């Protein structure tokens, strides 16, 4: 197991290197530059100013030279300073990542808490009212755009009922219980949508497993139905669910820009989006690199979870 983990970590090195080239290259291909952002639309633009700013920000150097310098620093976890805010990138990212991880993790946990029981019962009680309810609910969840569901939640729970704040963020480290008030609506918006996908997946996986011979054998041996379902079948059926949930979590870490805007949530997705608009190269590069590494690590963790769920799965 340990050898496998070390081997997988070693395999991450070329993946991350390719990622750095891709991140740096794509950012270079963006039209416009930080000089355009700094000059803005307010005037005062001239060739001299552009040249001075380009030199100030190192943009007068060849791209490979800038890549080498950036990679060298990134390997030492030094991403430099934001070209726009002029603050250390690490500070910018560290102030954003916890908020995003908090939201994404709670959203995914919430989705699994909804989806796994619902999908399991839908499969076990196939073609009953429970199954139909689960299927309709998941269909609605998939069909409703996330942002629209979020706005409905805000209108109902914030404006009309006044139970929860409509937007904002409080760090759980500052005030845990206070932070939950701000977390519930965005996490519910994420959780409901993701649960819709995961419910369908869990249901179909369970149906697949329930049709296998080992389930019939277990039942024939007289094992209690609850044990057959939860001890054996569900555990096997969880592998695709865990895979998808892991990927959903990785996706959510950078992909909640719209929800972050609606709930004024200071996440990393919005920070990278704003950085792209402003051509803040170091922040874009560092942000995407960090998210990329997180995705790679999430994949590794998902693979390792397979082994936990089913010891017969070979990790070699």
């Amino acid at each position, binding site marked *: 197991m340990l050898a496998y983990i070390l081997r997988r970590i070693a395999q991450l090195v070329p993946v991350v290197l390719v990622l750095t080239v891709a991140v740096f290259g794509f950012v270079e291909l*963006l*039209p*416009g*530059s*930080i000089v*355009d*952002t*700094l*000059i*803005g*639309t*307010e*005037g*005062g*633009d*001239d060739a*001299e*100013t552009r040249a*001075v*700013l380009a030199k*100030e920000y190192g943009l007068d150097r060849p791209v490979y030279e800038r890549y080498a310098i950036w990679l060298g620093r990134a390997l030492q976890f030094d991403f430099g300073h*934001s070209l*726009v*805010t*002029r*603050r250390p990138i690490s500070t910018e990212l560290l*102030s954003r990542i916890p908020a995003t991880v908090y939201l994404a993790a709670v959203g995914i946990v919430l989705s699994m808490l909804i989806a796994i029981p619902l999908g399991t019962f839908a499969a076990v009680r196939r073609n009953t009212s429970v199954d139909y309810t689960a299927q309709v609910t998941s269909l609605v969840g998939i069909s409703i755009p996330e942002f629209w569901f979020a*706005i409905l939640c*805000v*209108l109902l729970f*914030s*404006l009309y009922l*006044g139970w929860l*704040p*409509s*937007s*904002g*963020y409080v760090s759980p480290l500052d005030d845990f219980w206070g932070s939950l008030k701000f977390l519930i609506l965005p996490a519910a918006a994420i959780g409901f949508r993701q649960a819709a996908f995961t419910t369908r997946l869990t249901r179909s996986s369970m149906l697949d497993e329930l049709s296998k011979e080992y389930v019939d054998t277990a039942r024939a041996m007289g094992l209690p139905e609850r044990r057959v379902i939860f001890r054996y079948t569900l555990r096997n059926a969880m592998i695709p669910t865990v895979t998808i949930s892991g990927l959903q979590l990785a996706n959510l870490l950078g992909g909640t820009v719209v929800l972050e*805007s*609606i*709930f*004024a949530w*200071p996440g990393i997705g*919005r*920070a990278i989006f*704003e950085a792209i*608009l*402003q*051509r803040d190269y170091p922040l874009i590069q560092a942000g995407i690199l960090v998210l990329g590494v997180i995705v790679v690590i999430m994949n590794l963790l998902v693979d390792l979870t397979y082994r936990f769920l089913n010891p017969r799965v070979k990790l070699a």
Partner: protein
Amino acid sequence: MSAESKNRGPERTRRSFLKTTTALAGAGLVGLPGAARANKRHPKRGGTLRFGTRDDTVGLDTHRNIIYFVSHPLAAITGGLVDFDDKMEPKPAVAESWEASPDLRTWTFRLRRGAEFHNGQTIDAESVKWNIERIKDPKIGHAFTRSVLSDVERVTVDDKHTVRFHLKEPHAALDINLIYYPVNLMAPGAVDQADTHPVNCGPFKFKSWRRLDVTEMVRFENFWETDAEGNSLPYLDALTGRPKKEDRVRLTALRAGELDLIDNVAYADAPAFKKDHGKTFDTWPVPQVGTAMLFFNLKKGLLADKDNPDAHLLRQAIAHAVDHEGIHQAVFNGLGAISKGFYSSASSWYSDGIESWPAFDLDKAKALRKKAKGGDEKFTIIANDTFPYMQQSGEIVHAMLKDAGFNAVLEILPTPVMNDKIAKGEFNIDSTANSFRLDPDGWFARNVLSTAPENRRRIGYANEKADQLIHAARKERDRAKRRQMYADVETLVNRDLPMLYTHYVPLMMAGSHARVKGYAPSFTGPFSYSGGGMRRTWIEG
């Protein structure tokens, strides 16, 4: 008010000086700005105001970044040599008085004794000189800010409280350019923390900032201004900026009681909100110095006279195809007004003697388009995606031009891409807007004068007569004469059509009626102006 009494420039500032010195003798009685270090606080007025804004600053260094009056909470920390009142008239701030030499090439400012930066450092002549030199450094100062000071050749110190600006050319409106937007003062001793914890001299002190999330500021206890009873301003204990980019998210947060005050109520929401919630929330239409327009690319392409002999005909056809009333209703929901020049009737620079642009006439537009060379060729409209009204205006103009038979395409672009296209001349029409040109020279000398870098970069307009008028107006002391000169330039613009003015940009604010007291916005936006804005606001309950 007579035309003479409205005159700005050195004559007006001498009167201001006399008024100010008189006022200083009895500041506590008459309520004009009093001596610095007026620590007596109003016993009942305070609280923390939560302000929801559409935008946020991109960085903290107030020289590197433009800190907009409207929508950047950080504006509350800024202050400068000159202040202005709710009519946008210049008033003493850190500078108690000022005067220009007869040739308008030297301006002398006398500083308020005891005025301080937020860290307690005295604002003296050396610190003002340091600020101006730092802003003028192209590696540091924002391009717009530097352009405001482009005529300043050097700054000298006469004594601790007297600073002198030496100009390359005569300039009748330097004082207005030195208002804290954008020339705000920061403490020289705290320059190392300009990007992390800025130290300025406005009514509020910086506490913390997380971009697009929160800006926390606290009352500056030694701010120089007092109210009529001699209580020091501002009243508020603290101000919290809560940028929320989406207009309806901001409005919802106000209605849910999470914010006390918001800017930029969406045009589509404003009338219904006022009607349905007028008893619970105050709404204010903010007088604006913002104007939307279409810039035409005269540097190259179909609309450029040097590339197309019928370019002017095409521009006329476009002007006839644009239904200003349609823009007024569809984009601005009937708020604000159609513009025929840069300054609205709310501004003292407004003139009704401007010859209008070609009126909406679809048949005429079609006929001119058919007649003109290039009338069937494809051309590009670009619009910035930052402000909804710019892209909405672009969309509706695109539809109007299609109605007139033009082969137009529309591109909605982020600022860097748009600037790139503008620099390369890859557009024909730019749906845009401009604001806070506090003196007309700030507008005409940047966007109409043929030698101005911004005009050359963006439009490429050249009219000898307009250039003469702009140069002459800069040297003219008489305000009425200046206004007429600028009106004449506007007439030339509306004839030549390097741009087509469309609409004055309205701004609607809303606040909790029960909690927000003493507040009224002005031209300067929500934060700060002499005797008003956030300085005289307090929270109840």
